[in-house]
């Protein structure tokens, strides 16, 4: 195959992969978030219900997790880089992670419910 052909094939593959990764990481509007601290699941938060959770690590670290209007955000934390806070409010997609605190918040694909009455 000619060089031009190979370039075309790779360019195509790169585009497909780019589109695929955008698709996979999009805000899926998941319905619940699982909060894992140090490898242990400590809470499951349905995104349809406004809630607040203060996660505390064994050595004085903390992250404030807020669910509001169907979105989850880490609003405050005392980790050195606050990457988790910078992520902002999301309703799904890639997990929200605080590496220094070993905190991972991942969104479950299975929707718990579509709406809450009352």
């Amino acid at each position, binding site marked *: 195959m000619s060089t031009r052909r190979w370039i075309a094939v790779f360019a195509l593959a790169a585009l497909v992969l780019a589109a695929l990764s955008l698709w996979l990481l999009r805000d899926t509007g998941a319905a619940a978030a699982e909060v894992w601290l140090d490898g242990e699941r400590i809470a499951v938060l349905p995104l349809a219900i406004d809630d607040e959770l203060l996660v505390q690590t064994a050595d004085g670290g903390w992250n404030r997790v807020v669910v509001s209007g169907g979105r989850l955000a880490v609003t405050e934390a005392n980790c050195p880089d606050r990457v988790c806070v910078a992520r902002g409010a999301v309703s799904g997609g890639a997990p929200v992670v605080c590496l220094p605190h070993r905190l991972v918040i991942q969104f479950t694909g299975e929707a718990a419910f579509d709406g*809450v*009455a009352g």
Partner: protein
Amino acid sequence: MKRCACILVLIFLLAACAPQTAEQTFFAMDTVMSVSVWGSDADAAAAVAEIRSLEAALSVTRPDSEIAALNRDGTAALTPETADLLRRALALGALTHGAMDVTIGSVTALWGFSTGDYRLPDASDIAAALPQVDYRAVQWDGDRATLPEGCAVTLGAVAKGYAADRLASLLADRGVACALLSLGGNIQTIGVKLDGRDWRIAIRSPFDESETLGVLSITGGAAVVTSGGYQRRFEENGQVYHHILDPDTGYPADSGLSSVTIVAESGLYADALSTAVYVMGAEAALRLWRQQGDFGMVLVSDDGTVQVTEGLRLSGVNAEVIS
């Protein structure tokens, strides 16, 4: 090269072809509302605009609304839609033997529930306003409604349900096949979900607002309305007063129920019944249910027991099925 370009275009199109939801969350009718439409942003915007125009026409607290004018002057020539709504609300008052009565406005005003200025009224003020609460006393001349002296209308028990019906109709006209409305906790499902599965509507727990008490499986379009004292209340001298007033006493209803959920085709009907059932209590509610046969009900008693009428699918909670 042409073929390559075509393939590239196709790939981009596929990546963009996600099911589109247009969602708007906004504040109206003194509460938070959200509209999720499987359609365009313009469809969601049209729904919001419709709510705003309904609020302008019906709100007791807007000085230039039709209802405010009716209350102020004792009479008003209503628009056909508002006249129709008022007639239907009064008819629901008759159906529920006054357990839901939109002419309770003068009493509601004493408590300040519409304005957020909550206060415990003097018993003598309530006693003076109570005789004017009577859905039978509204006079009609075409679309002109006339209220007896001292009587006032408040559509708080039916406005959100009515709005949900109006939105369902508007969205259907716009060709939207699937939508979910949450109007201050009044749920209206429209059409069938994209994946063909039933809608799952959870019921908020009246005992802990961050928890739910069971999930209803709803097929197709329906209204799911929950009423409970927990939704709006204040405390004075150690006593809690909530917003669902008993038209017979002028005081918050105390029928042993903490929350009532009604499932019906119409939002107006479900909204009116949820208030009426909360006031009348489980026994009278079950009689009404057997008599009407056109709605489903989930009753949560003050002691935590949950009852669900036969035909409703409720999971995730221990409920007594009533037939």
